[in-house]
């Protein structure tokens, strides 16, 4: 089976996080889902809340900011600036969690297409191991709040798309 699998997260060095995933879709569509505010709103919060605001100024020097309200009611926001924008291929941007404003990371996102499938890889480079570890820890915050309701939503969307 290709696509639709889990994310694969590895820690290549003490200061990096690498996230990879294959999608059953061509590159230009994955790039579009990744960079279009209306579409980002539908996936970025995962199961952990609702995305309330997405700003994307997709050009070198342009800024981005994502905000979500987590299921616990608190607000979580990230922002950064694009350094490189190669449509359908590669994005390099900074990324700052607004709860930890001193811990800026540089994120390199690559889109590689093969046989109408796209491999997405996200390399997050932190300045220190402590910052990297805090970033990985952020995955634990909402973990307990997840439920099966997400599966129902996915199923419903698939049916309505037919």
């Amino acid at each position, binding site marked *: 089976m290709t696509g*639709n699998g889990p994310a694969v997260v590895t820690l290549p060095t003490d200061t990096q996080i690498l996230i990879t995933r294959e999608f059953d*879709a061509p590159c230009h*569509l994955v790039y579009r889902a990744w960079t*279009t505010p209306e*579409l980002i709103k*539908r996936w970025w919060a995962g199961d952990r809340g609702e995305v309330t605001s997405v700003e994307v100024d997709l050009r070198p020097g342009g800024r981005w900011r994502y905000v979500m309200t987590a299921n616990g009611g608190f607000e979580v926001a990230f922002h950064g600036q694009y350094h490189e924008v190669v449509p359908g291929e590669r994005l390099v941007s900074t990324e700052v969690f607004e709860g930890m404003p001193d811990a800026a990371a540089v994120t390199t996102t690559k889109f590689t297409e093969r046989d109408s499938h796209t491999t997405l890889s996200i390399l997050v480079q932190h300045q220190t191991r402590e910052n990297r570890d805090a970033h990985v820890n*952020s*995955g634990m915050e909402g973990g307990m709040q997840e439920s099966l309701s997400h599966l129902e939503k996915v199923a419903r969307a698939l049916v309505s798309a037919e």
Partner: protein
Amino acid sequence: MARAATTTDAFNAVAEPRRRQILNAVATGERSVSDLIAQLGMPQPLVSKHLRVLREVGLVAARDEGRLRLYRLNGFALKPIYDWVKDFENLWSDRFARMDVVLTELKQATPVTTKDGDNSDGGNGDDG
């Protein structure tokens, strides 16, 4: 996540690059101290020091065979680290599962309906 001292916590034990080298070496089979010295090019006192830390946190186990002490990886002690990354991985798996839904719709060229009820696709225009 609270971190304990190096000698009691697997997270800090694997934070040291040379200890990770030792773990990689013993992960592929039992090794003696002299094997590790030869394989990793580290001086004996350093190998012994790192092995001691790894044994104290349970990442490495040892047994004696004749006059040789052989060291091996205890994979179960890595589980807390695996679990730690797993939570972060789950967040991304959830995001990607939602992207799959979005992509299914994009592939079928159905209008993308946002929460506001309009049919905008964001006007990115990169794919015509």
